[in-house]
């Protein structure tokens, strides 16, 4: 069950502060890295929302992000709509797709849920990959960023865009935290803990899980709009299942079921990747080993493990330790 503890608030402020400082005082390249981190962090929050709190380990979050990016680009580039309504339609597409996936898969669990989401994600990937009208595997370009000139800033400036990304990340974190603290979010945690009992006290758990997937899709959709505006170009690569796998890796690395852990994980992974790629062409191997180690070490992740240490040393009035091992997934 989610609590915005003081430790989590401090970590959030430190993480966002670090990103803002890194973007402000760093080079153009550092600003690009910050954008990349914010996109991955938003996607990871979105996945933690459904996997860490709802037990739905999705392998189609890359696809949800991609669908939003494609819908946004179709509207703005192909049909010439202004960028804000296009973005709204992009988000709607993501919500509809993830809600549908959630509704269809609501009665499956464990490995079947993972496989089903993998299949739906790959279906979307293949669709865009084969679609000539949408550029096939070449993708589409010609995307414009939001026009914020009325605020006196130019979004094509890397620093402005990086700070915009950080603001959006904060917004998504707040949305997720509010949803998880609400009656809806509490009951989602209850379903994760014991779906059968939740039905016995009168909750239609299948509908509840589908709505949770749709909400998660909204957040993944936001990442998609940001991704499209970041590179100004989209391709089916966004939707491929290994992207979803990497997001899951970020969630595990930071700490599943902690909400702030995924932000920490995204910072670590992107930094690690860029540092490693300076030295070696084989950074995938190191990332893979880190992932294996993270799971073997108990699966709490970096933030999760630190939080666990602090809580077991100074137990608060209402302990809310994330479970060490997953449950209800088998």
């Amino acid at each position, binding site marked *: 069950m989610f609590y915005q503890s003081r430790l989590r608030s401090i970590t959030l402020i430190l993480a966002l502060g670090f990103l803002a400082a890194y973007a402000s005082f760093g080079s153009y390249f550092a600003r690009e890295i910050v954008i990349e981190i914010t996109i991955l962090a938003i996607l990871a929050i979105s996945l933690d929302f459904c996997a860490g709190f709802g037990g739905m380990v999705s392998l189609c979050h890359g696809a949800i992000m991609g669908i939003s990016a494609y819908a946004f680009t179709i509207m703005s580039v192909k049909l010439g709509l202004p960028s804000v309504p296009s973005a709204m339609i992009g988000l709607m597409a993501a919500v509809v797709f993830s809600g549908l996936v959630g509704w269809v898969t609501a009665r499956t669990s464990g490995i079947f849920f993972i496989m089903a989401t993998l299949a739906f994600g790959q279906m979307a990937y293949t669709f865009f990959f*084969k679609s000539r009208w949408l550029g096939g595997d070449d993708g589409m370009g010609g995307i414009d960023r939001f026009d914020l000139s009325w605020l006196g800033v130019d979004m094509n400036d890397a620093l402005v865009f990086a700070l915009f990304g950080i603001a959006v990340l904060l917004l998504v974190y707040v949305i997720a935290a509010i949803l998880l603290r609400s009656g809806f979010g509490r009951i989602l945690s209850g379903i994760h803990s014991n779906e059968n009992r939740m039905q016995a006290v009168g909750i239609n758990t299948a509908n509840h899980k589908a709505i949770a997937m749709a909400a998660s899709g909204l957040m993944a959709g936001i990442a998609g709009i940001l991704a499209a505006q970041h590179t100004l170009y989209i391709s089916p690569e966004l939707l491929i299942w290994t992207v979803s796998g990497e997001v899951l890796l970020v969630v595990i690395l930071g700490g599943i079921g902690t909400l702030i852990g995924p932000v920490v994980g995204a910072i670590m992974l992107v930094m690690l990747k860029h540092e490693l790629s300076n030295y070696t062409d084989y950074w995938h*191997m190191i990332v*893979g080993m880190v992932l294996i180690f993270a799971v073997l070490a108990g699966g709490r992740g970096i933030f999760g493990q630190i939080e666990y240490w602090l809580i077991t040393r100074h137990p608060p009035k209402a302990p809310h330790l994330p479970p060490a*091992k997953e449950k209800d997934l088998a």
Partner: protein
Amino acid sequence: MDASFWLLQFLNAMQYSMLLFLLSIGLTVIFGLMHFVNLAHASLYMLGAYFGISVSALTGQFWLAFILSPIIVTLIGAILYFTLIDRMRAAGPMNQVLVTFGLIFVILDLVRLGWGDIALGLDAPDALAHTVSFWGISYPAYRLFIIALGLTIMISMWVVLARTQIGAMIRASVENADMAASLGIHVGRLFFVVFCFGCALAGLAGVAAAPIFSATTTMGITILIPTLIVVVIGGLGSLEGAIAGSLIIGFLETFGAVLLPSLSAVLTYILLAVILVLRPQGLIPARG
């Protein structure tokens, strides 16, 4: 589209189905027995191809590579079993997916380190390097060999599972491992043997595929998804399911590509989605 066209497509579909079968049978039996989801199974397939190419290059003997490569892959599988797989067995599907996802990355980069990023080819052995003409078509002998190999393994596995003592032990353990253990079956040893056998088949599929597709660093990830789909469609843990699933996917993808090119790419995924919704246990589920 005359008869020879259909025959050609039929043989292509059979050959693809057999490769899928060799991969999926190991994956499905390992899942059925140990409840372990090994995403890195397809990486072993890739290793099979690369080791086959190296052994063949070093010795000039295709058939030696054909035998040695699965053995090397099995040894690697055994190492993985003792370092990772065995201790992840009780950890739940998500952790298994994560650890083996990590393994895919590690093996991928190890292959790039060892063999580089360029696609490597392997020549079919001289005895099979020609084409065979029959019923108005000519077809590479090596591909016919793959079909024959797959069918032979399929039939012998069916016989082993249905008729022999070890087959009975495996089936009993798939149905209920605790019960099997109480009947005196050494379940741990059985798991290990079956896991190694699954690895050997993956290695064999890799070296067998190398002359047709040539070895690339993406070959593992590319075949992983269809293999998983075969396993889920057929029913996790079921031999008959793996046979049915590989034939369905092999034929659907091959004929879909020629008959409905615009739809073919998503046909498989639509089928999987429909089956997961209507019959999540798969077409021919393992009992238990």
